[in-house]
């Protein structure tokens, strides 16, 4: 029995959203009389961090601390229309809608502050800590709370904003496939290192090194969470998962997590990630979205690493020990390729 190590790579791009049917999202932003803002959405937080990333976008655009913004998701009576949380569209589409709504609300807030300070609104700026002051004269200042009170009870202004972001629908040419499927693309490259046991066919992950280009990491911790989790989903697809183990024979489908194979804590390996930011022209602060794409490079990188380790190509997922072992036997033993 020998364990062989090998490295494989894959590089990919991924479309942000899918606009063939037209792809809109809306957002509403409003302040209460204490200067605390609510973002109303019908978008969904699946755990990916929709609430948090739109909260930061709103706070940055308004020029207030993030603690002064709360995001309310998915109530059809209060949240305006959103297509939904899929196709890696959340950060880009909903983020842009929130940005537009926050810009409109900021415009009213600055007008109200200007009236209180008796200056022109264009001469004001926010300090990001809850105050608005005259540019170059920080002592001529008013808190966003006092502005909100004045707007509500004295000036009769609503510090609120509406936002929509729409990628218009794109027709598809029946003959050539000409179309505009997306406005921007994220990118990735992964190097996977594996160890293959030529007696059992088992594949163990040794490490992953990757680079992801996402336009802008709006919240690097959320990005890291997505990339780490997504890579493990990709690894799980590569080596373990299927609802039909003998596809296209539909029998022997797993019914629970005992029968459905997934990697456990013992299968985890180090993953070193680099994030690159090439801002998208139409992204909120240039952001694209890390959502779906981070699982994609892992499957081929692992398959290519297995070839590098033992010289067999398994072109059907998942790459189970049985498939690896049969392929090794078929070629008369492991044939490690050049180390790299």
């Amino acid at each position, binding site marked *: 029995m020998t364990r062989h190590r090998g490295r494989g790579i*894959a590089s*990919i791009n991924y479309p942000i959203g899918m606009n063939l049917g037209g792809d809109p999202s809306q957002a509403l932003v409003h302040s209460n009389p204490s200067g605390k803002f609510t973002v109303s959405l019908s978008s969904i937080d699946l*755990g990916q*961090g929709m609430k948090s990333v739109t909260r930061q976008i709103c706070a940055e655009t308004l020029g207030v601390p993030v603690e002064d913004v709360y995001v309310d998701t998915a109530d059809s009576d209060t949240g305006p229309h959103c297509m939904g949380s899929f196709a890696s569209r959340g950060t880009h589409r909903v983020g842009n809608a929130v940005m537009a709504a926050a810009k409109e609300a900021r415009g009213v807030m600055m007008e109200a502050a200007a009236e209180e300070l008796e200056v022109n609104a264009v001469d004001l700026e926010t300090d990001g800590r809850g105050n608005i002051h005259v540019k170059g004269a920080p002592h001529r200042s008013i808190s966003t709370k006092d502005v909100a009170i004045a707007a509500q009870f004295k000036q009769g202004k609503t510090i609120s904003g509406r936002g929509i972001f729409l990628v218009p629908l794109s027709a598809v040419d029946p003959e050539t496939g000409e179309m505009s499927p997306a406005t921007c693309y994220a*990118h990735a490259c992964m190097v996977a290192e594996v160890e293959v046991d030529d007696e059992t066919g088992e594949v163990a992950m040794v490490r992953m090194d990757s680079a992801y280009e996402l336009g802008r990491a709006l919240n690097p911790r959320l990005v890291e969470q997505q990339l780490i989790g997504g890579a493990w989903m990709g690894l799980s697809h590569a080596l373990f998962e299927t*609802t039909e183990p003998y596809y296209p024979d539909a029998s022997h489908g797993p019914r629970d997590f005992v029968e459905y194979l997934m990697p456990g804590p013992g299968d985890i390996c180090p993953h070193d990630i680099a994030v690159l930011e090439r801002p998208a022209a139409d992204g909120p602060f240039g952001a694209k979205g890390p959502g779906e*794409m981070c699982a994609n490079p892992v499957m081929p990188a692992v*398959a290519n690493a297995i070839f590098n380790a033992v010289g067999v190509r398994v072109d059907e997922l998942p790459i189970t020990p049985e498939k690896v072992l049969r392929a090794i036997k078929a070629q008369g033993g492991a044939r490690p390729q050049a180390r790299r």
Partner: protein
Amino acid sequence: MLELRKDIFADERDDNFKEIGKGTQRQDMLGHVTGTSTYFNDHKLQGMLHLKILRSPHAHARIRRIDTVEAERYPGVRRIIRGADVPRNLNTLLSLINFGKDDEPTLAVDKVRYKGEPVAAVVADSEREASEAIAKIRVDYEPLPAVFDVEEALKAGAPVVNETYPKNTFTYHDIYDHQKLRFGDVERGFASADHVIEQRYQMSPIEHAPTETNGSIAAPDTNGRYVVYTSTQALFFSLDTCAKILDVPSNTFHFIGGTVGGGFGGKVDTLTEPLAVLGAMLTGRPVRYIFGREEEMQYGPPRGAERIYLKDGVMRDGRIVARKVRAYFDSGAYTRLSSYAVVKCVAHLPGPYTIPNVYGDVYCVFTNRTPATAMRGFGVTAMDFAIECQMDKLAHLVGMDPMEFRILNAYRDGDMKAHRREAKNTALIECVQVAADKAKWSLREEFERMSSRKDGGGVRAAVPATAADPFAPARPAAQQRTTYDRAAQPAVQPQPPHPPAPPPVSPTPAPPQPSHGAIRFSSVFGSRRR
């Protein structure tokens, strides 16, 4: 560990922000880590009933008779729901964007087309009573031959899975059984190539495996409205789908969701909401319908299993000169969203590389298995697996380093993509360079120096001469029914063999259609007719 490479593309960014770029703790972190976040299933309503589904034991069978007499008398049973009770039983999800024909019943009526297809629902006082009553329903089935392989399903004489699409393929642009991509001349490319290889790749059906299974709770509200707590990934998509199926105005519903225990694409299909609401309408009580784990794994939709044939021509120096793709998406018994993924897949060809000749035919195929749906990377993941395994084989074939091989063929700013749009804002080369650096994988200096921002465009910006396919069939009479009206389905006409080629047809936008029930998100898709 995550490292931000702020040094790369720094001249394209302004990094002067107060909140953006900070690793601020999630707004919902405290609730999640203390187990106090509210999910749909945390709503326990007074008098709540429970809905369970009788599912087909056959992959394909005619339903001769459904006998619910004994089940109706079973203790605790409030209501049995059958297909005839559903106001608009037949639906297709993407009718909300006017794409495709209604092809899937909420509850099967005359036929079942996959093992696990819902046949009847029981609403009872407890889950146990609902499950026991399910066992008392007698269904007389006549098993039919089934087809499980995408290529078998396309053969003449294969069992017809779904009568809405009698050829077992989704219909594109009213005329084609696949979506085409044509860019340049692949055959000439293969003729000029030093090596040509063709390979077959197979993706597997995969479960989304969310911690929280699909489910919803619907309850009568005041003034004739219904409140619906749901795990959906797309609130208005689900709301509008319910409005259509139940044939009521969309403002009948107050949908509440937004905090979901994992989706990954498996919570777009609106699997539970229509029956939960219908149960509430028929009983006047709150009704909960939640998938068990086995239902989630076997009868909830999986990632579809694409089969891909990839043929490439490559030169000795490593340049890929032609790529031809034939791919089959296994949609299962109904369309759901696979028709859309096919188009997304075609747009993705030939991967992030500039190849002068690209050809694609991608099919959405019906088989007698659980309908597939969206999953992370929908339409792209399997193609990336195929393309990137193929890239490794090609690099090996020409004796090139696989990293350098990718940099050589990578798309760059200004290049023409195969879907005929200019590549902008590209960064594949930089990702490969940085990943190589991270992995201590040395690249030759000339490849270290290459850039997405250099040497693109020019001759690479041109759309190559592309011949039209011979024998493009003429359009048959309108058969793409996309309205919500319950008009009789027009008979599907056989396509005439090899009619004369019509002049190329450019897409013409259809006029907006009257909206009934649900809101229309858009009025046209491609050049479909009604």
